[in-house]
């Protein structure tokens, strides 16, 4: 019955079903054939390069511990968010049910499969143990975040930032390696997180400036935003690599990663400003008028009434911006940084793997890492959107 209704209702549909059925089967067979017959030695040998680049091999415990701390921070924030959503739902008198284990599995199975695949490609116990500990830490932090008293929940974002700072410190201090020596997917993730965090304050100011009633402030904000949004990221990266030195006083010469980070921050601020502007526009004007009627100062109105509602509404779009920056960080490979895309080229140029057409193995592997990251985040964003009821009021 199901087949009759969904595959063969009319002769036209039957034709489409047959044609695309053949295409689908052919695609699936080719994919499986490729997966089974490929030789993954190149990834097995270079796995550490793909993940942390040239990070000294004696110091690998640092990225491992940093990963545990970072995942704990994410788990904590997720727990707090879940508790907050529950509080809001109960306030409104609607029912609230956390997702069951099976539901989470159905939503995030690609992530789990990828972690499994990466672990299959390693022979040592270090990475396996790290992942196990990191998952356990994330889970405990999630429970902790969920049970945290309201006073702690209020400052959860600060706590998460501190934890990220601790992760950074573990990588860098006392014999560690500064960001100039980072590489692999670690560099991509670092550039994404640091880029968003650094660009957010600037973007917030630009968005408020664009909505300001002062013409001069508005002009400056609009010019900056449109200027940056009108040019491709690669030109800003070239500017960062070749020309940023010219704009700084003599003697200050930042390293390549710092230059790229400056370019990414300036670029991302304009996009975040547009995201925040969308949030600001979603706040009903009656809210502002009501607070004015209560005699609130303009600054207080913005800080206590407009921004909390606006920023809540921007969360899904902000995740989208995060994903798009994550994908864009591959561009740093064009200006000579050792990100994961550069590493895949380096691996293909190793004498043992040279000119064997192994790009068909390394590039899909890199693609898998990006795809899973983006897909997982966009799934969570969609769920968050439903939970927060964004766009429903």
């Amino acid at each position: 019955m199901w087949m009759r209704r969904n595959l063969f209702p009319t002769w036209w549909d039957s034709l489409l079903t047959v044609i695309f059925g053949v295409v689908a089967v052919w695609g699936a067979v080719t994919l499986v054939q490729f997966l089974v017959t490929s030789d993954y030695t190149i990834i097995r040998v270079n796995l550490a390069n793909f993940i942390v680049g040239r990070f000294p091999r004696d110091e690998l415990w640092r990225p491992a511990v940093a990963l545990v701390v970072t995942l704990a921070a994410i788990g904590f924030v997720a727990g707090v968010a879940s508790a907050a959503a529950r509080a809001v739902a109960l306030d409104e008198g609607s029912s609230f049910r956390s997702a069951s284990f099976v539901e989470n599995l159905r939503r995030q199975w690609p992530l789990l499969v990828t972690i499994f695949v990466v672990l299959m490609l390693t022979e040592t116990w270090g990475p396996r143990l790290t992942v196990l500990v990191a998952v356990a830490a994330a889970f405990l932090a999630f429970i902790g975040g969920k049970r945290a008293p309201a006073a702690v929940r209020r400052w959860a974002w600060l706590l998460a930032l501190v934890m990220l700072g601790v992760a950074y410190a573990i990588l860098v201090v006392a014999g560690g390696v500064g960001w100039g020596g980072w590489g692999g997917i670690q560099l991509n993730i670092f550039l994404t997180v640091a880029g968003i965090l650094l660009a957010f304050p600037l973007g917030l100011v630009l968005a408020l400036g664009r909505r300001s009633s002062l013409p001069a402030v508005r002009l400056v904000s609009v010019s900056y935003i449109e200027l940056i949004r009108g040019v491709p990221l690669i030109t800003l990266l070239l500017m960062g690599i070749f020309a940023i030195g010219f704009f700084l006083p003599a003697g200050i010469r930042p390293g390549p990663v710092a230059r790229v980070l400056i370019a990414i921050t300036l670029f991302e601020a304009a996009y975040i400003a547009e995201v925040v502007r969308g949030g600001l526009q979603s706040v009903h004007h009656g809210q502002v008028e009501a607070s004015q009627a209560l005699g609130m100062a303009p600054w207080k109105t913005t800080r206590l009434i407009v921004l909390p509602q606006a920023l809540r509404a921007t969360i899904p779009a902000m995740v989208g911006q995060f994903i798009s920056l994550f994908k864009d960080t591959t561009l740093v490979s064009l200006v000579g940084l050792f990100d994961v895309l550069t590493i895949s080229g380096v691996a293909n140029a190793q004498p043992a793997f040279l000119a064997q057409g192994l790009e068909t193995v390394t590039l899909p592997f890199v693609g898998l890492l990006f795809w899973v990251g983006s897909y997982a985040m966009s799934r969570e964003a969609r769920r968050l959107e439903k939970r927060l009821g964004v766009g429903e009021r």
Partner: protein
Amino acid sequence: MDVTPSTVGATRPPLWRDLRVLRVVIQIVALAAVGIVLYVLWFNLTNNLRSQGIRTDFGFLDQPIGVNIAGSNIGSGATVRRALGVGIRNTAALAVVGLPLLTVLGVVVGIARLSTNWIVSKLAAVYVEVFRNLPPLLIIVFGFRAVVLRLPPPRDPATPFDLFIVSNLSITVPGFTAVEGFATFWLTVALAAVAAGGVWWWRTRVFDRTGKPHHRILWSVGLVVAVAAVAYAILGRPIRLSIPQLNGRAISGGFTGFGSFFAVMGALVLYQASHVAEIVRGSIQAIPRGQNEAASALALSPFQRMRHVVLPQATRIAIPPTINQYLNYVKNTSLAIAVGFADYVNIAFQAIGNGQPAPQLILIVMGGYLFFSLLISLVVNILNRRLQLVTR
């Protein structure tokens, strides 16, 4: 209670709390801050350039570029200005070929995702989810290294269907060539198009006056097609299909492009079309179901419902974000540098590598993209104003 009358004679707030004064002061402070930042940057720039002996003017544009640009016929003797012009032309070629392709692919996939046929909608969903979540640069590099470079070498190219000539250096596809009478033909067709506009207006008038079906699309397109067909026959086939021929190693006829061109174009079309497909799907789904139901109640057929009720409204929603995707496509063509295609950015990059001043060249490149983006935004804004529903 103490009520302050808001008439003359009321005490004005002190200067530092007077909103009118504050507004002016804040703006002056903001402008001054921006001015100081710009001045410091400019001061550092000129100082640094002078101390390193780098020129600050744009006179280098007329000097030879001094490097052979790979993937083009620019020798080291060509001026920087001419090389940049070729770069703009190559970027434009990527846009002109890619934009129609990605539109068609995106619209087809977007509609396919809403198909009631299970396998069609699932395949479309898989395509969209796969390409939307991959970095475009990675797709380009894969398309070049894992697809184009694995094609047969130029001395022994493949010729599928005898219509294409494919090697890892260049790909030739069938094209059109203009022969004698070409200009006359286009002139005739252009005149027919103007006349078709008149016919369109006339049919609309008839419809407004009598209420009879106007069939203006049938009338005006039919006129153009009929005139074109007659002119084509009379002028002795002024445009001919040109199928590439292989004579030894020389290729004649057809449209030849570098393998890197096709890698960049194909990868970006696949990537951007997945975004357009999402826009198309979202726009169709955004039409309230009541619209469809009301159309059914008026006894419109499924085709009429789509053609007269859903699509006109969905198009209005879809156009601004789709044009945004077009802009993204054009900006993303700058990634051609990864596979050595001589686009605008790549040529500037090679000129910088050969010792031409970086700040000016990067400014020129940014200015080019900026000009184009602002032009498109202007068009979008005008379009938006015209498309917006007049609501009370």
